[in-house]
């Protein structure tokens, strides 16, 4: 509340947003032109259609924000546009490389631009439909149910498809998508709505043990359910990344809602137990850990990790330059390993800039949560920002071999429709909450006490 103290005058700051959107477009289009110059020596022929499409989408989102969320955070949208544009340019560059090598996959840049348009449509739809984020609290358990159904969809015999050992895809004729990405958004709303109601008993009851407040045994229910859910995702879908993401998300929200470090201790122990157990039981987890600790022990199994490492080393401090490297040597250089591809062509300097952009997105989300006046909005904004942060940490950490590699998409950069649409929806929700938070409070008119009631004398 301190930021909304006496002297705070709410400002819309849409002008600053427009300036940053133009700069973000310069990043995206600059990368696109840079790829053309680097690969073939001249500006790509379709720069007008491609660049025009991207610019149109960016300015459309800006106009919609001016109309539907005039007080929303001015930095969030440009950051996302820059990431999306950069990802598009990198995918366009990888299309060249794939064509050179005569590989049958791709091209990806066209579909990615289409998915960006669909993502922007989703962004507009969320801003239009959700006029007040507090209304979402009414549908807490509906969102929980939807999340469970979405998570179970890939396990159904006809719909679900297994790709590269992970059963996280749903296929409907020509269309296929990862429901887990949308489930993430639903889970954040469900966790937030649940914790708003249940946080008092979770926060207050319990006993103290060596300086840490430990929760009561009977309050452990929800955290155990979340733990089992993420273990289920791990066992049945073999999706390490999402499993980590869901559990981490619930743990952080529980901690934020109750302000008790005891939950972190309990959650950390549960995580350690689950991780050790799955390391012993599942060979795909052992494979990931082995590839993290010693990738050169088997150059066939860990080919992707090794290639990614070489790619980033090839890039060095300033990178090879757009179109000058050879990121296609790494399998899945356009989706899971796009961070390594960017590291090769833009170098440490470029990859650091991208990570700072991610950090700024998370910072704006947490800032919105801090200033937000209602608990539900606070928890949703925290959850969305934390899910973003966790996802970037898990995937970039995996690619750079800080932690074992787990399959998650890099938000806004990776090729992939479900991820783009889900992340645009997340940003829309964050901007809706920040719009509600930053707009001026309605004025309270002092009561006019001129016409008092007649006191009727009854005796």
């Amino acid at each position, binding site marked *: 509340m301190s930021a909304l103290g*006496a*002297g*705070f*005058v709410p*400002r819309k*700051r849409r002008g*600053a947003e427009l*300036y*940053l959107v133009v*700069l*973000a477009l*310069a*990043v995206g289009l*600059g*990368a696109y032109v*840079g790829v053309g*110059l*680097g690969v073939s*020596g001249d500006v790509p022929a379709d720069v007008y259609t491609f660049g025009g499409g991207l610019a149109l989408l960016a300015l459309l989102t800006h106009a919609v924000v001016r109309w539907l969320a005039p007080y929303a955070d*001015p*930095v969030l949208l*440009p*950051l996302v546009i*820059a990431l999306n544009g950069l990802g598009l340019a990198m995918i366009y560059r990888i299309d060249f490389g794939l064509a050179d090598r005569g590989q049958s996959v791709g091209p990806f840049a066209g579909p990615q631009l289409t998915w960006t348009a669909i993502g922007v449509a989703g962004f507009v739809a969320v801003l239009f439909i959700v006029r007040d984020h507090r209304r979402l609290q009414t549908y807490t358990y509906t969102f929980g149910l939807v999340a469970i159904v979405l998570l179970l969809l890939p396990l159904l015999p006809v719909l679900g498809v297994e790709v590269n050992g992970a059963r996280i895809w749903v296929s409907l004729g020509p269309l296929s998508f990862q429901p887990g990405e949308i489930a993430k958004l639903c889970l954040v709303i469900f966790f937030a709505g649940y914790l708003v109601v249940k946080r008092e008993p979770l926060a207050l009851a319990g006993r103290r043990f060596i300086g840490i407040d430990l929760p009561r045994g009977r309050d452990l229910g929800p955290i155990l359910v979340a733990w089992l859910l993420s273990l289920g995702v791990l066992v049945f879908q073999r999706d390490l990344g999402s499993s980590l993401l869901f559990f981490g998300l619930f743990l952080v929200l529980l901690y934020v809602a109750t302000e008790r470090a005891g939950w972190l201790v309990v959650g950390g122990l549960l995580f350690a137990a689950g991780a050790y157990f799955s390391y012993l039981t599942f060979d795909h987890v052992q494979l990931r850990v082995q590839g993290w600790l010693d990738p050169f022990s088997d150059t066939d199994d860990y080919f992707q990790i090794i290639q990614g490492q070489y790619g980033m080393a090839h890039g060095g401090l*300033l*990178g*090879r*330059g*757009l179109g*000058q490297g050879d990121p296609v040597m790494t399998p899945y250089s356009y989706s899971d390993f796009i961070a390594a591809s960017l590291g090769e062509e*833009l*170098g440490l*300097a*470029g990859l650091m*800039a991208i990570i*700072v*952009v991610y950090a*700024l997105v998370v*910072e*704006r989300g947490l800032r919105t949560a801090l200033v937000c006046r209602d608990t539900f909005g606070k928890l949703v904004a925290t959850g969305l920002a934390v899910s973003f942060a966790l996802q970037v940490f898990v995937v970039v950490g995996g690619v750079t071999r800080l932690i074992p590699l787990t399959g998650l998409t890099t938000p806004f950069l990776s090729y992939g429709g479900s991820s783009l649409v889900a992340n645009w929806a997340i940003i829309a929700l964050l901007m809706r909450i920040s719009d509600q938070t930053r707009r001026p409070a309605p004025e309270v008119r*002092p*009561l*006019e*006490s*001129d*016409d*008092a*009631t007649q*006191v009727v004398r*009854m005796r």
Partner: protein
Amino acid sequence: MSELTLTLIKLGFLAVLWLFVLSAVSVIRSDIFGARVDSTKTRQPKAAKQPKPGREPRGSPRSVEVTEGPNAGQTVPLDGRPILIGRGSDAALRLDDDYVSTRHARIATNGEQWFVEDLGSTNGTYLGSQRVTSPMPLTVGTPVRVGKTVVELRK
């Protein structure tokens, strides 16, 4: 395309990328430190209050008086602490009115203004024709009706 040109393009793009990041940071910075403070509205009253500390501003109420009802004429002095109105023995303004709840209403101040707040009474607290559901600002001489009793702030 020569090696030099490509190097310049590479460095130029990295410069654009970082320019974008730094511009975003500077917008965030101006958001934190640059919020315009409306100095004419917020500074003036503080400056006016400063010279005479300890003295209450003119027009602030000194007591609560019962103007109608069984306890008419009773007054309770105000010293900045909240006043509990009700039939109970712990009420600062105790009323012998059957239509008043044990803990009926409270009159409290935030230092500048007085407020009346209903404490979940059976028959309600009325300010003018309006039932008090949330704390309402109260001025001197405004009748507050609790049960069959009317109280008001007096200077």
